[in-house]
C-alpha cells in the first residue's frame, strides 16, 4: 500500500542541503528571485486593482445581447434609425385604485408625473404623449371639415363640466386602449427617449433614469415616501400606483439585479472560506487560498476593465467561476505542500516540490477549462463572446495566481503544524480503510461485475429517460413578460397589468418594407403591406397589426367625412400623399423621413418559440413571394423580431457548440490518455450529465437561450477535469501492471478528495446565483450547480463502472505502454505522472 504515499522526493529539512539550481527554468526564475517575484505580483495587483476600481463599468448593452451577424439583425441594425416607432421609449401608467381617471385629484397626480418626466434629461419632449400633452388631440369631421383640439381642455381647472368635456374628448380621440386603459382606471404616458441626452451629449444612463423613476415618481406617488417598502418589491398601499415598462426601465432593473448579484460574491467567498477551512483546518492556508483566488479575480477584473470590457449580466458570472476554479487549484497545492511539511521538509522546498509536481497538471486542467470557454467564442452573440474572452483571461490569470503565486506565498508563510500532521493522518487513515477510506472502499466496489453492471444499467436507464424528456426541450423563452427578469418581479407585474388593461402587447414583431424614396406611399406597396398584415393576422398568436396602411385607410375615410365605406386604400396618388402627410403628423413612427422604409408591426400574444417560428415562417414566405426590385420585405425588428433571430442563432449554436465542445474534449482526452477506451470512460459520464441537464431544463421550464447556451459547454469543459484527475492516475497504475480494482482504489484515494473539493467549491460558487433577481442568472445557477455536482458523482461512480467494461485487466495498448513508459523514463512532465503525485 506504499503507493498511496507521496512519490518519493527527498525530505530536506535544511535549505542549505537543497540545490537551488534544481528544477526547471520557470521554477528557478520564480523561486530563486522570490522577493522580486512577490514585488511584481504586488505591483500587478495594485495596478490592476486600481484599473478595476476606477474603470470597471456596469453596462448591460442591448446590442451585445443580440446575434450581430444574423441576417434579421443586420436588417434591423441597418434600418434602426428609420424605426422610430420601435425606438426606445418608456411607458408610465398611473393607476387610480379607488376610482377612475375622471377625478380631479387623479388628474393632478398625473400632471405631476407628466411635468416630472417632461423635465427629465434624455426625454424626447416633443414626442411625449399623455392626457396632459397638448399634442394629444381629438379630431372630428364636421360640416365644415375637420375640427379638433387638445384632449385636455385648454382651460382645465378641475370643474365638473371640464371633466365631462375631457370624457367626451377621450372618446372622440379614440385613445381608449392606447393612452387610457379600457377600464378607465389608469392612463398612460408614452415617454420616448433620446439616443443621447441633449445637454451633455452622453448616452442616457439607464440606471440613473430608472432610479429617477423610482425615487421621483414611485416613492412620492405610490409609496408616500416609504422607499424601504418600494425597495422590498412590494406594491404601494396608496391610492395611486405608478407602473413603468420599457427598455430603459428594464436595463435599470437589470443593473440593480447586477449589483445584487455582486453582493452574492461575498457569500461565495465566505462559503469558500468555510469549505477550505473544513478541508485544511488551517487558518493561515485557508486565508492564503482564498486570498490568492481573490487576487485572481482582481486581476481578471482589472484586465477586463483595461481592455474596455464592461460587466454585464453575463460576464458578471466570470469572477464567480474564476474564484471557484482558483480556490480548487490552490487547495490542491496546499494539500501537497502540507504533506511535505508534515514530513519535515522545509516550507520553501515543499513549495518547490509541489510546483514541480503540479504546475503542468494544473496547466493541463486549466486548459481543459479553457476549452469549455473557448468553444463559446463560436457563438455569434457578443455577450457570450465577451463571457468567453473574459473567462479565458481569468483562466490565464489563474496560472499566475494559483499555480505560481500560491506556492511562493506559501513558501513564506508555511502552514500550521497541526494542520500538516492532520493532512498526513487523513491519508494514512484512508489507507487503513478508515475515514475517507470507507468511502473509497465503497466506490471501489463499482469495479466489480455486479456493481459495475448495476451502475451502468441505471445510468443507461437515466440516459434514455433523460433523452426522452429532453426531446421536449424548447428554444427561447417560455414565459410571458420580460424574460430577463423573474415572472413575479415588479417589472413583469407592471407589464402584465399594462398588457391586460391596454389593447396591445409589448411583444412586437416588425417586418420592414424597404423601397426607393417615396416608395412607401406607392399604392402597390400599401396593398402588399395590407396583405402581409392580413396574412400575419391569420395566425392565432397575433393579436393585431399596425402599419402606415391603418393610418392611410383611416385618414382617407376622414377626408370623405368619416364615411366608413371609404376606410380604404385609394389608387389616387394625391389621396395617398395627403394621407401620408397627415400620418406624419399624428403617427410619425409609421414610416421614415424619405418614405423609403415602413414597418408592418405585429403585436404577439407572447414570445414563445412556437409563436415566433410561426410568425417568421409566414413573413418569410410572404417575403419570398413578393420581394421585387421595387420593394423588399425585410425581417425583423421589434422585441419579438430580435428574439426570433436570437432563437434561430441559439438553436443552431446549441447543436454546433455541443459538437465542438465534445470534439475538443475528446481530442484533449485522447492526447492525455492515449487510449480511446479511456476517452470513452471519461466522456460517457459527461454525456449522461449533458442529457440529464437538458431533461432538467424541460422539467424546470427553462428553454435553450443565450443564457443557458454556455452552461453545457462550461459543464463539460470543467467537468472533464474530474475524469482527468481520476483516470490519469488509474491508467498510470494500470500501466504499471496493477489490476483495475487496485488501480482505481489508488486513484480515488489520491484524487477523490480533490474531485470532491473541486465539485463542492465550484457548486458553492454558482449556487447563490439561484437567488439572483435576474431570471436567466438564476437558471444558469441551477443548471451549473447541477452540472458540477452531477459530473462529480458521475466521475466517481461511472468511471470505475465503465472501466470494468472497457479497461478491465486488459493489457494497455502497445502504443500507449510505450508512451507511458517513455513518459516515466524521461521524466516527461505529463499529466498522468504529475497527477499521480498530487497528494
Amino acid at each position, binding site marked *: 500500500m506504499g503507493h498511496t504515499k507521496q512519490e518519493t522526493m527527498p525530505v530536506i529539512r535544511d535549505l542549505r542541503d537543497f540545490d537551488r539550481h534544481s528544477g526547471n527554468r520557470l521554477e528557478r526564475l520564480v523561486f530563486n528571485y522570490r522577493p522580486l517575484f512577490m514585488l511584481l505580483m504586488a505591483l500587478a495587483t495594485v495596478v490592476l486593482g486600481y484599473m478595476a476600481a476606477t474603470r470597471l463599468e456596469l453596462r448591460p448593452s442591448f446590442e451585445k445581447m443580440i446575434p450581430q451577424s444574423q441576417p434579421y439583425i443586420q436588417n434591423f441594425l441597418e434600418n434602426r434609425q428609420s424605426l422610430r416607432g420601435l425606438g426606445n421609449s418608456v411607458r408610465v401608467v398611473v393607476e387610480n385604485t379607488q376610482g377612475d381617471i375622471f377625478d380631479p385629484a387623479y388628474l393632478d397626480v398625473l400632471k405631476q408625473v407628466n411635468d416630472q418626466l417632461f423635465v427629465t434629461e434624455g426625454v424626447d419632449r416633443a414626442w411625449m404623449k399623455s392626457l396632459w400633452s397638448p399634442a394629444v388631440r381629438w379630431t*372630428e369631421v364636421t360640416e365644415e371639415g375637420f375640427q379638433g383640439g387638445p384632449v385636455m381642455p385648454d382651460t382645465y381647472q378641475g370643474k365638473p363640466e371640464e371633466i365631462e368635456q375631457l370624457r367626451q374628448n377621450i372618446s372622440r380621440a379614440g385613445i381608449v386602449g392606447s393612452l387610457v386603459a379600457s377600464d378607465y382606471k389608469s392612463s398612460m404616458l408614452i415617454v420616448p427617449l433620446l439616443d443621447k441626452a441633449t445637454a451633455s451629449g452622453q448616452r442616457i444612463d439607464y440606471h440613473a433614469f430608472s432610479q429617477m423613476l423610482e425615487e421621483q415618481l414611485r416613492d412620492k406617488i405610490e409609496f408616500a415616501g416609504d422607499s424601504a417598502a418600494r425597495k422590498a418589491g412590494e406594491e404601494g398601499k396608496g391610492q395611486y400606483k405608478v407602473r413603468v415598462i420599457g427598455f430603459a426601465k428594464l436595463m435599470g432593473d437589470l443593473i440593480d439585479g447586477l449589483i445584487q448579484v455582486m453582493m452574492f460574491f461575498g457569500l461565495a467567498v465566505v462559503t469558500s472560506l468555510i469549505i477550505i477551512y473544513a478541508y485544511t483546518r488551517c487558518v493561515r492556508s485557508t486565508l492564503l487560498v482564498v486570498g490568492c483566488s481573490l487576487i485572481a479575480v482582481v486581476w481578471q477584473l482589472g484586465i477586463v476593465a483595461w481592455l474596455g470590457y464592461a460587466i454585464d449580466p453575463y460576464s458578471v458570472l466570470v469572477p464567480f467561476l474564476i474564484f471557484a476554479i482558483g480556490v480548487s487549484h490552490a487547495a490542491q497545492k496546499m494539500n501537497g505542500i502540507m504533506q511535505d511539511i508534515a514530513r519535515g521538509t522545509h516550507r520553501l522546498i515543499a513549495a518547490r516540490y509541489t510546483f514541480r509536481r503540479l504546475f503542468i497538471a494544473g496547466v493541463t486542467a486549466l486548459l481543459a477549462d479553457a476549452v469549455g470557454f473557448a468553444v463559446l467564442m463560436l457563438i455569434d452573440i457578443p455577450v457570450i463572446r465577451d463571457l468567453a474572452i473574459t473567462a479565458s483571461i481569468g483562466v490565464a490569470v489563474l496560472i499566475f495566481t494559483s499555480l505560481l503565486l500560491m506556492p511562493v506565498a506559501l513558501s513564506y508563510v508555511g502552514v500550521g503544524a497541526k494542520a500538516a500532521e492532520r493532512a498526513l493522518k487523513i491519508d494514512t487513515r484512508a489507507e487503513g480503510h478508515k475515514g475517507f477510506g470507507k468511502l473509497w472502499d465503497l466506490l471501489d466496489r463499482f469495479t466489480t461485475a455486479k456493481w459495475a453492471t448495476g451502475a451502468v444499467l441505471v445510468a443507461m436507464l437515466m440516459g434514455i429517460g433523460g433523452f426522452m424528456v429532453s426531446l421536449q426541450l424548447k428554444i427561447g423563452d417560455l414565459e410571458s413578460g420580460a424574460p430577463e427578469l423573474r415572472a413575479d418581479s415588479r417589472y413583469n407585474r407592471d407589464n402584465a397589468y399594462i398588457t391586460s388593461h391596454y389593447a396591445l402587447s409589448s411583444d412586437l414583431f416588425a417586418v420592414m418594407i424597404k423601397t426607393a424614396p417615396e416608395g412607401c406611399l406607392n399604392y402597390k406597396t400599401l396593398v402588399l403591406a395590407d396583405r402581409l398584415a*392580413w396574412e400575419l393576422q391569420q395566425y392565432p398568436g397575433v393579436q393585431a397589426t399596425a402599419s402606415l396602411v391603418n393610418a392611410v385607410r383611416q385618414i382617407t375615410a376622414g377626408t370623405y367625412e368619416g364615411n*366608413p*365605406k371609404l376606410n380604404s386604400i385609394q389608387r389616387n396618388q394625391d389621396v395617398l400623399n395627403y394621407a401620408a402627410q397627415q400620418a406624419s403628423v399624428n403617427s410619425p413612427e409609421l414610416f421614415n423621413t424619405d418614405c423609403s422604409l415602413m414597418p408592418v408591426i405585429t403585436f404577439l400574444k407572447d414570445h414563445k418559440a412556437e409563436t415566433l417560428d410561426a410568425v417568421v415562417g409566414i413573413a418569410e414566405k410572404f417575403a419570398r413571394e413578393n420581394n421585387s426590385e421595387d420593394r423588399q420585405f425585410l425581417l425583423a425588428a421589434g422585441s419579438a423580431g430580435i428574439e426570433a433571430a436570437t432563437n434561430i442563432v441559439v438553436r443552431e449554436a446549441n447543436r454546433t457548440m455541443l459538437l465542438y465542445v465534445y470534439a475538443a474534449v475528446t481530442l484533449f482526452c485522447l492526447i492525455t490518455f492515449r487510449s480511446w477506451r479511456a476517452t470513452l470512460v471519461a466522456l460517457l459520464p459527461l454525456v449522461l450529465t449533458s442529457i440529464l441537464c437538458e431533461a432538467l431544463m424541460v422539467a424546470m421550464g427553462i428553454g435553450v437561450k443565450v443564457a443557458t447556451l454556455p452552461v453545457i459547454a462550461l459543464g463539460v469543459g470543467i467537468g472533464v477535469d474530474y475524469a482527468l484527475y481520476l483516470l490519469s492516475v488509474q491508467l498510470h497504475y494500470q500501466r504499471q501492471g496493477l489490476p483495475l480494482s487496485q488501480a482505481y482504489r489508488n486513484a480515488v484515494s489520491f484524487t477523490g478528495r480533490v474531485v470532491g473539493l473541486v465539485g463542492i467549491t465550484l457548486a458553492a460558487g454558482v449556487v447563490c446565483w439561484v437567488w439572483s433577481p435576474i431570471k436567466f442568472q438564476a437558471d444558469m445557477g441551477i443548471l451549473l450547480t447541477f452540472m458540477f455536482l452531477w459530473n462529480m458523482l458521475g466521475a466517481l461512480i461511472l468511471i470505475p463502472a465503465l472501466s470494468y467494461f472497457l479497461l478491465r485487466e486488459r493489457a494497455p495498448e502497445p502504443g500507449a505502454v510505450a508512451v507511458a513508459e517513455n513518459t516515466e523514463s524521461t521524466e516527461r512532465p505529463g499529466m498522468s505522472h504529475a497527477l499521480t503525485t498530487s497528494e
Partner: protein
Amino acid sequence: MCSYKNYLQLALGVLLATLQGMSQASAYVDVLDLPARVSALAANSPLSGMARAGDRLVAVGQRGHILYSDDAGKHWQQAAVPVSADLNAVSFPSATQGWAVGGDGVVLHSSDAGATWRKQLDGREIGALLVKHYSALASAEPANEQWPLLVAEGERLVAQGADKPLLDVWFANERLGYVVGVFNLILRTEDGGQSWTPFQDRTDNPQGFHLNAIASTGDALYIAGEQGLLLKWDDTQQRFAAVQTPYQGSFFGVLGKPGEALVYGLRGNVLRSTDGGHSWTPLKNGLHVSITAGIVDAQGNYRLFTQGGQMLVSQGFGAQLHLVQQRAPTPVTGATQSADGALVVVGSRGARTLSVE
C-alpha cells in the same frame, strides 16, 4: 468520387432552389384579379354592408370578404369571391339574385343566394363605358353642351384607372338596378347587370358630390349624398331630381316606408319627411356622432345605428327617437333583421347579433 457527387447534388439543389425562388417571386396581382382569401377571421373583420337573401343573411366587407349565414348570424360561411377589393354594399332583390359593389368600381353578381360570385364590372371598364355612351349621345346631339363634358369625364376615368369606389347598390328586381359612387358616379342596368348605362346626366348634382347611398321607401327612390345632397327619382322626368333639405352636411343613408322618409348622416343629424320629401324636420336625438346605418324593423320601427355603436329607436311613426344603450358598443355600418327577428349588425369589428328588447 463520392464527395464530388455530393457537391454536384448540392450545387444542383442550390440552383434549383434559386430558380424556384425566382419563379416564386411572382408579379404583383391587382386586388381586382386576386380572389379573396378564405379566412377564419373574416366574420370578425371589417364588414360594411348586409342584406337578406330570403332567410339568408349576406354581408360584405374589406378584402373581398362576403359572408353568409343561415342561422341569423350565429355562424358565417365565406363565399367564393373573384376579387379582393374592399366591398361596400350588397342588394338582393330576390332570394337568389344579388349584387355587391365596392372599391375600384367593382360590381359582383351572385345567382345562388350569395354562395358564389362572379365579377360583372370593374373600374377599369367604367371610363370606357362613359366615353362610349356619351360619345354616341354627343354625335347624336351635337348642340347639347353636356355630352362633351361627360365624355371628358369618362376619359379622365380611363386615365386614372380603377380609381373610383362604388358606395351603394340597389336593385328593384332581378333586372333593374343602380350602383352609385363617388363624384356623382352612377350606372343603371336593365338586364341584371349584363350591360350598364352611365346615368351621370340624370342627376341634379352639378357639383359632382359623392353619392353615398341609394334606397327605396316603397313609394319613392332616394339617393343620399355629400353636403346635403338628396335626390329623388322623378318618373316623369326620368331623372333623379334634387330635394331641398334644411341640412348642409353629408348624408350617409336614407330609409323609410310608404308615406315617410328618414335621411341620416353626419353628427347625429336625422331629417324626417312625411310629404314625399317636400319638407323635412330634424329629429333631435342628442348625439354628435355620425349615423351610419339604419333599418325599418318587422314592427315598422326605425332603428338607426351610429359610428359609436349607439342605437336609436323610433316608436311607431318616426317622430321621436330614443337612445338605446348598448353593452360594449362597436361601430355599425350595416344592419338587418333576420327572418326570426334577430337584429344583426356589421361594422369594423365584424358581425354581431344585438338583443332586441
